[in-house]
């Protein structure tokens, strides 16, 4: 006996910059303007998050997830993407959506309960996914289209650690593997799926090694090391654009805030755990690197914060000026080619609303 074999267990998350901002020996780091762009977006993400939570508390938007603590993963990925790349993500990737070109006001509109789109012309992204895992096979489909049309572009399919348990995650990644598609699967392992800790989600020692089930290479990266995230995404994206096939990246990070504004994390996780992770906040870490590299100008963060607050203020104003969704719009968007039967049903519904003065 003794015929069963175990998985390799020698994973070590890739890190290029230490907690204190010092680059690791021999680390190849992105150029300064890239680093600054990442920093700027991380600051924007932090401000965006604060503003959204306060809008929610004021009842001006609905339930929203917090992205605090995950800005390095989101921005590192977003900055590594290019204009022709497609993004397929979820509610936890709002910052990546914005880096990729979706204006904050569109996302605010969405959380105000309005029509979630359209995104600006030319921004290649699927709608912000709510159904966990559903975007994964869709991303494979986008990848197949790119491959068939021989476009030099990649697809990024984001999801969380919990999402890797869904059947759709499996089917989508396997499809991309089997058809050798230009898709990068980017998993933000933030330690929790609402109240279920990563270790209970799957017995797999890492999320990264799940890639081996699909015959594609993988990396596990310190998701709070923005530059490591950027570099590994760049490699995976280039590989995909080159036609060398899919890969999977696990970014190990931590959700510092609640799952959403409806969630009370004190019910299921220890304050001490959160405290410990606060100390690993990716934003001061990248700032320390900027200082270390001598590219941090005095007051930069404060300036960027101010800029972000201003731009959020404008975005909120724009979003709040959008008139509420009408039933007509809902019908208009249900069918591109309305049949006679569908038109009659529209008229019936509107007549009923008018009759009681609801319209």
């Amino acid at each position, binding site marked *: 006996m003794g015929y069963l074999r175990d998985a390799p267990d020698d994973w070590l998350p890739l890190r290029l910059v230490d907690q204190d901002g010092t680059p690791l020996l021999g680390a190849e780091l992105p150029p300064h303007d890239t680093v600054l762009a990442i920093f700027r977006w991380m600051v924007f993400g932090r401000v965006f998050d604060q503003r959204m939570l306060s809008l929610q508390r004021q009842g001006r938007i609905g339930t929203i997830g917090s992205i605090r603590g995950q800005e390095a993963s989101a921005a590192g990925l977003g900055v590594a993407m290019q204009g022709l790349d497609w993004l397929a993500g979820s*509610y936890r990737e709002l910052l990546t959506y914005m880096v990729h070109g979706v204006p904050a006001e569109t996302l605010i509109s969405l959380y105000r309960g309005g*029509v979630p789109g359209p995104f600006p012309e030319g921004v290649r992204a699927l709608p912000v996914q709510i159904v966990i895992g559903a975007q994964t096979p869709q991303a494979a489909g986008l990848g197949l289209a790119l491959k068939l049309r021989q476009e030099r572009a990649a697809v990024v399919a984001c999801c969380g650690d919990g999402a890797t348990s869904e059947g759709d995650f499996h089917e989508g990644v396997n499809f991309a593997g089997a058809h050798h598609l230009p898709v990068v699967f980017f998993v933000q392992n933030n330690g929790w799926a609402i109240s279920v800790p990563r270790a209970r989600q799957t017995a797999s020692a890492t999320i990264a090694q799940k890639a081996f089930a699909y015959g594609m290479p993988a990396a596990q990266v310190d998701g709070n090391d923005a530059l490591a995230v950027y570099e590994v995404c760049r490699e995976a994206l280039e590989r995909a654009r080159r036609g060398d096939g899919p890969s999977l990246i696990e970014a190990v990070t931590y959700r510092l805030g609640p799952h959403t504004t409806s969630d009370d994390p004190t019910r299921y996780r220890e304050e001490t755990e959160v405290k410990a992770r606060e100390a690993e906040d990716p934003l001061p870490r990248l700032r320390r690197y900027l200082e270390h590299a001598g590219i941090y100008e005095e007051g930069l963060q404060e300036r960027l914060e101010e800029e972000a607050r201003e731009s959020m203020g404008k975005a909120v104003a724009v979003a709040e000026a959008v008139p509420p969704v009408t039933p007509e719009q*809902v019908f208009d968007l249900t069918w591109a080619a309305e049949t006679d039967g569908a038109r009659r049903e529209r008229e019936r519904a509107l007549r009923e609303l008018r009759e009681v*003065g609801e319209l």
Partner: protein
Amino acid sequence: MKANVVEAVQDALRIALREDPACLVLGEDVGRNGGVFRATDGLQQEFGESRVLDTPLAESSIAGVGLGLAAAGMHPVCEIQFAGFLYITMNQIGSQVARLRLRTGGSLKAQMVIRAPYGGNVRTPDLHSDSFEAIYAHTPGIKVVLPATAYAAKGLLLAAIEDPDPVLFLEPMRIYRGYREEIPDGRYTVPLGQARVAREGVDVTLVAYGAAVGTALEAADALATEGVEAEVVDLQTVAPLDAETVLASVRKTGRAVVIHEAARPGGLGAEVSAVIQEGAFYSLEAPIERVTGWGTPYPFVQAEGLYVPSAARIAAAARRALSA
């Protein structure tokens, strides 16, 4: 005891776990977190991790694991976090759970309950407000139950857990935290497969279930001020349908309005309408009205208030029926 709907559900689960050693509860976040709506609050603490289990984030497996547990003689109560995700369980429930007994010549049964909060007008994100009772009502082999009150929630859930057939139990989110009513302590059951008359009347029958029963009662109040006595029938179990209770009412009133918030085409209102005209054709004095969601997907929060039937729409339909 005083309880709202979610507390009634929780009480039923507690009683089942206490009294039935084969009963267990599983789902996403049902353990330490007590469910995103607190329907399982405190249960893991009281009964331990082997009776109240967090599952991986994978709905098809929650239903499939439930089937396996039931086949081995357990009585699982599976939670699907929101009814919108019942699409994902369609294969395990429709092709497997609902047919296990048939397929095994009766030697294995799927005595299990799948619970899910359903319904709209609660300002939740996309796919969190949908009502899919009709697709499961078209799936014979599984009973589909929707309580409209705290009393019914507890009694129907306890009946569902001890019923030898699988039951899809849809809990109206909108009234989860509604007012607390007095309900009996301890075990009692409300029989599956039986509608109830929620309000008696002679002029028109309003047929509803789940959260819409409350809206129908509101409409009945409004109609009463006009001298119209509406009878409100609460279906409670929508599959198999208790046609007799509906028919008895319509034979008396001659007029019917069927209400649900799911999309109109192919919704449960169609089945109720068909059954009424089959069984009470000669009593009908006006076309049966349906007051429902539209022929569109459930819309975004900003439009949902117009999609979900209001008391005004129900009353207007009743007036149409009365003046036809």
